[in-house]
């Protein structure tokens, strides 16, 4: 059983389109995250939800909107996609969100905007 699963694994789309990435975790964790990894492999947190409530919202364009229907799911919707949105997006989960919690990562979604 995959602990943190994301779909799709690859996503190629045109500029201006709207797309969603889904994430589910079966670890029973109460906190979920979205990270963006750019072409230089730099990982940066975008959002974090604890018990379905937004707790971290980094400086991310309004075109990105996370939604957490329940503790096990955190989806990422992106409007009006731009070339600069091309990256690998990782979902992660943890139990709690303090500094000493281990995050478990999904396999990533490679988004290519053309």
């Amino acid at each position, binding site marked *: 059983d995959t602990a943190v699963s994301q779909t799709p694994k690859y996503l190629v789309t045109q500029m201006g389109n709207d797309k969603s990435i889904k994430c589910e975790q079966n670890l029973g964790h109460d906190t979920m995250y979205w990270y963006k990894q750019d072409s230089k*492999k730099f990982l940066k947190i975008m959002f974090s939800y604890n018990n379905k409530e937004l707790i971290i919202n980094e400086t991310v364009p309004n075109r990105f909107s996370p939604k957490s229907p329940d503790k096990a799911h955190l989806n990422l919707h992106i409007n009006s996609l731009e070339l600069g949105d091309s990256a690998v997006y990782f979902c992660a989960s943890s139990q709690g*969100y*303090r*500094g000493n*919690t281990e995050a478990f*990562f999904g*396999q990533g979604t490679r988004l290519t905007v053309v």
Partner: protein
Amino acid sequence: AQSVTQPDIHITVSEGASLELRCNYSYGATPYLFWYVQSPGQGLQLLLKYFSGDTLVQGIKGFEAEFKRSQSSFNLRKPSVHWSDAAEYFCAVGPGNFGNEKLTFGTGTRLTIIP
């Protein structure tokens, strides 16, 4: 604000040789430190973590890391690398138990193994 520096962008070692990947952090108090590995096309997997106590921590796949407060370092080591260790390695810091915390990653070190 906390930060993590991995000075080596790319390291190449021979199979069977020893390995040390460097990580330096900046934080005012005792940090929580992590090493993650990312194999090609995969997500990140936790290798080991340091929260407190013994400054030498053992992880999976034969890796270990040593926390040195005086040097603000948390270097990752392995006595003998295997070809399957070729991957990207990330050091990360989780800064504490107050407020809305977040895991901050270094820029990663790509490890290449040559026969």
